[in-house]
């Protein structure tokens, strides 16, 4: 009797246990080991001794790191925002259609996301190449002057934002669409009967009801863009100069080019903390109840 009651009261906990164990073992524990490593000097993985918070101190006092965080936040928020808005538009559009048309729109929205990230970025870099790329080839044939992208600081930032947004539209589209399909038709009909127009139905009924998918997509997109080092590395290499030197590139360089794993661990921890700040902000903004 005791065991049965125990099981029932804590059934919820037991249900979550296997999944949580996996998450904790694979995701959370390494975080602690990274935290531990961040207090050592670990060049080339040689244990150079305990250095306390020296790694963190050198990061905080480096203006390049501050700048990098700043430009990363800018690029991340911009691309996540564009992606969310476009994904929402796509999803609303598909919601009004069925059959082949809906399927086609979904497919078109999904393609950027399903292709290997490296290949997609490599193709963009090729297409946008100043002299041999498709874009400028077209512009030149039509008589316009070519667009200079990768030598220009602002153009590089804008292009990075666009390519990152391009890649993730499919994700938000799928998420929001699933949420939209869960909205009860009865509510929509009732609202229209009451005289609401399409816009009011959208803002007062649909959007509030898909709060969760929107929140989740925004979080995932922001995280995805913030931590993405493949796209910036291939598309702009952090340049020209330091124009697009996002923090994930700094992290990559610290670990794999300079082999300073102690500092890289410290930076990983900082990046993780910034990510958590984003998540907390979003959850607060949307007033999500767990």
């Amino acid at each position: 009797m005791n065991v049965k009651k125990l099981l029932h009261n804590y059934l919820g906990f037991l249900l979550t246990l296997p999944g949580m164990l996996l998450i904790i073992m694979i995701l959370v524990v390494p975080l602690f080991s990274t935290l531990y490593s961040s207090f050592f000097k670990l060049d080339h993985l040689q244990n150079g001794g305990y250095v306390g918070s020296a790694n963190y101190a050198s990061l905080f006092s480096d203006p390049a790191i501050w700048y990098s965080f700043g430009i990363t936040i800018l690029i991340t928020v911009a691309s996540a925002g564009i992606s969310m808005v476009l994904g929402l538009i796509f999803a609303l559009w598909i919601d009004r259609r069925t059959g082949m048309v809906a399927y086609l729109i979904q497919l078109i929205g999904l393609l950027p996301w399903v292709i290997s990230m490296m290949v997609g970025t490599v193709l963009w870099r090729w297409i946008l190449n100043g002299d041999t790329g498709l874009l400028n080839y077209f512009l030149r044939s039509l008589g316009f002057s070519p667009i200079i992208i990768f030598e220009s600081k602002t153009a590089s930032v804008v292009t990075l934002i666009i390519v990152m947004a391009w890649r993730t539209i499919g994700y938000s589209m799928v998420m929001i669409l699933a949420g939209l399909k869960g909205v009860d038709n009865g509510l929509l009909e009732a609202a229209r009967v009451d005289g609401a127009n399409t816009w009011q139905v959208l803002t007062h009924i649909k959007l509030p009801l898909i709060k969760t998918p929107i929140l989740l997509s925004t979080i995932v997109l922001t995280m995805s863009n913030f931590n993405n080092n493949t796209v910036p590395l291939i598309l702009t290499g952090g340049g020209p100069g330091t124009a697009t030197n996002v923090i994930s590139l700094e992290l990559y360089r610290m670990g794999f080019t300079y082999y300073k794993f102690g500092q890289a661990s410290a930076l990983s921890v900082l990046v993780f903390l910034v990510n958590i700040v984003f998540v907390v902000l979003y959850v607060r903004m949307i007033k999500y109840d767990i």
Partner: protein
Amino acid sequence: MQKRSKRWIAIILTGILSLNLLAGCSAKPVPSQDTGVSNKESKEDASSQTDSTAESGQTDGEQVVRMWTFLDPAAADGRGKALGEIIQNFETENPNIKIVVEPQDWEQMTPKFFAAHAAGNAPDIIWCIMDEMGAALDLGALEPLENLFLKDWSEEEIADIDDSFFNFGTRDGLHYQITHSRNYMAFYYRADLFEEKGLSIPQTWDEFVEVCQALTEVDPQTGIQRYGFGQAFNVDKVDPQIMTARLLEKQGNLFTEEGKANWANETGEEALKFQLDCITEYGITPEAAVNLTGEELFTEFAAGKYAIISGGAVRVPTVRADVPFDPGAVQLMLYPSTDGNGHAPSTINGWCVGVWSGSQVKDAAGKFVEALMSPEADELWVTEGGQLAIRKSTMEKLGDFYQNPDNKYLTIVADGITNAGWPQPTDYPISSWKNDLNRAAQMVMVDGKSVSEALSTVAGDFDTRNGG
């Protein structure tokens, strides 16, 4: 009732959390001084796992040797096939030894090896990139080849392979690697365009600029704006650029004896200035060079955008297979010099094949490393893989092969390596000097800093990173 159940939960949770924390804290980096004990323990763990993958070690008299490389013997390209043949021949001659190749992504391979070494579970043979050889030696990750097979070699045999590659990374007279996929930075040039314009190979840097200027024009056939000389200053995917050659020409080394950066001086400024003048003054390099990658230099060269680019000689076969024009037009020439005598030194590079110091099958691994550069194997590397020969005897034996105009570049490069080759120092850490020099170039072009300021900034960064 409530209190009891709460206590149970607390006990279970504490147990789980502490188990996890223990596991996490035990995964700290292993001090590299003594890996002997931890090797044994992990090896025992390793052999007790059942899986479908090969484990090094001994089973019933058969020894399994694991090798990490970026080549794939199962692949269809020339080098992969050459490796496959060499393995086949070796296994026939040594029926008790099995070679298992685990192809890796070349960018992750070296850091992965360092991590595997720290964890005591590295492969028996590793292809380590030359830039990180110093670090590998500092970590004690490689076994001296003298302990394995070199001690049995006669003087003549050693003389056959004795060159700057063989002596790369020696410590206390001991050799730790054999260099494969030997690379040398030289100028790729369009022999067809040279012929068309009646140009000859430039011997001095001034002649070089003139030649490039003559080649800078709009291509009448394709309509592309051609530049005489392509450069690439991307900070992440880097090849050494020509300022390295000019620095080496005057100074002989990029670093001081203590391992500090030695380019924040007049020679360095002059070298960097020349590099950038190609864009701003001579007009032979496009502005796009500022953020171009080494890879793109080659694709744009194939598209006909450049007449000359600096690149690693190891890529000649690939470039020739890619170009839409006559592949024979792709030829190599060595760097010119300031006064026309000889050539400016160029960086040699390659992949250092060594045996892991913690291997359980060192002798078998050593045998295979030896086989990888046997006279027969060397021939295969050259003829099928398009590589530079390791042995002098191979070059003599394949005289006809080298006479073929398509293979002329191999002799040119061999000459360059012998007379104008600069191997990177291994006595002190030099990580990412190439990135730093390119960063200096970007600082000047993009951020408008002065040449001296840029050079001293990156020199300072380099020193902090590698010395402190």
